[in-house]
């Protein structure tokens, strides 16, 4: 392989490096040849180490993740590898879109040359004149300190903010998945993918499940083959 001698700070992170490798070697982002990508990536990280660069943890973490995907894809039954690959693909597409948008934004910065002015003084004094209850301060303090004990499960709306309008349409999948699980139903994981029309549809569904699991909204149990998925607060309700 040709000599690589760019610097680590050229890349914004492991995702950026992966995208670079994918484009440089003309790999198909929608069907990443994982073995090839792992080799390229690990080679690159190794060279950095040889050059005594202080490698950020994220780069090593990604290396570990890629190697894991490679390992499971060598198993005779490698559904898990496919899923992990799809997950990575979704993330790469998302980051690629993000870079593209960043690039577009960087070409329309004329407005940085427009200046505005401070409000004209002497007309009003800005002393605050509204009245409030002390409790509003207490609530604000608890909110700021971030340690308020939450007794209620977060409202569904709060998830919309995390997953809303993702570059891949994960938000709609979150509501679809949640809808399927309403009423405490236990649903087979693979059945969530029924009716998916495209690959990105499935990736989005998968990411939606991950997002919901991460925010402890749903539980996943069973074997890797086809676990079942259930809403967490529903579980609690039943137990009580």
């Amino acid at each position: 392989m040709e000599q690589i001698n760019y610097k680590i700070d050229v890349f914004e992170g492991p995702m950026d490096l992966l995208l670079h490798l994918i484009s440089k070697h003309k790999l198909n982002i929608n069907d990443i040849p994982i073995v090839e990508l792992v080799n390229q990536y690990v080679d690159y990280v190794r060279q950095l180490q040889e050059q005594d660069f202080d490698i950020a943890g994220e780069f090593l973490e990604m290396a570990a993740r890629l190697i894991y995907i490679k390992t499971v894809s060598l198993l005779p039954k490698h559904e898990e590898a496919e899923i992990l690959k799809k997950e990575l693909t979704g993330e790469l597409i998302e980051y690629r879109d993000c870079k593209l948008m960043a690039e577009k934004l960087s070409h329309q910065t004329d407005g940085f040359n427009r200046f505005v002015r401070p409000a004209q003084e002497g007309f009003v004094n800005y002393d605050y004149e509204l009245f409030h209850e002390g409790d509003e301060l207490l609530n604000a303090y608890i909110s700021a300190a971030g340690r308020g004990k939450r007794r209620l499960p977060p409202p569904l709306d709060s998830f919309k903010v995390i997953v809303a309008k993702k570059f891949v349409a994960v938000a709609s999948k979150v509501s679809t998945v949640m809808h399927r699980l309403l009423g405490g139903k236990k649903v087979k994981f693979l059945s969530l993918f029924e009716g998916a029309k495209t690959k990105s549809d499935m990736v989005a569904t998968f990411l939606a499940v991950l997002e919901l699991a991460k925010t402890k909204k749903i539980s996943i149990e069973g074997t890797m083959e086809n676990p079942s998925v259930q809403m967490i607060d529903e579980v609690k309700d039943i137990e009580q």
Partner: protein
Amino acid sequence: MNSNNVMASLEAMLFAAGDPVDPAKLAEVLDIDVENVIKILGHLEAMYDERGGGLRLIRVDGKYQLCTREEYSDDVRSLLEIKKNTPLSQAAFEVLAIVAYNKTVTRSFIEQIRGVDCSGPVSSLVQKGLIEEKGRLDLPGRPLVYGTTDRFLRCFSLNSLEDLPDLPEEEKKDDSQTSLFEDDNPDNDTEKKEDE
């Protein structure tokens, strides 16, 4: 009050306010219809453009604001002794793109997409007034949610977030070779270096 006087009053109010002003508030003060206010602000905008002075009227998220014309930015900068603004970093542009396209996001959401810690660029964008906190999520740790500011819209010449460049279309064919890297690899390295 005739319409010339209304226009003059609108000019005075926008000048004094400094920040972008909601036309509804202007209408409230003048006791006339919002539609009328917006129409007359249109005349004011045209007047500024025809006259070719140092000022212009811009729209920011449905609000109106007076600002200087770009042509005179160097003079303004040297009078106010403002350093030539250092261009935003690649990381900052990426964070801005994520915040702008998703309207409101937590820092961990941004980090999930970028795959790296983003506390540096996030706080520098807050300091530059391009993004701001929009509240907290009702989740453990009560994470802050960020969104873009009016200043962001002004700096990127956008009337609203709806005017952002379109997202790339979903891949038409699943197995088509990715087309996003049109500039094939040779200049990729140089391009990145320039970004620094």
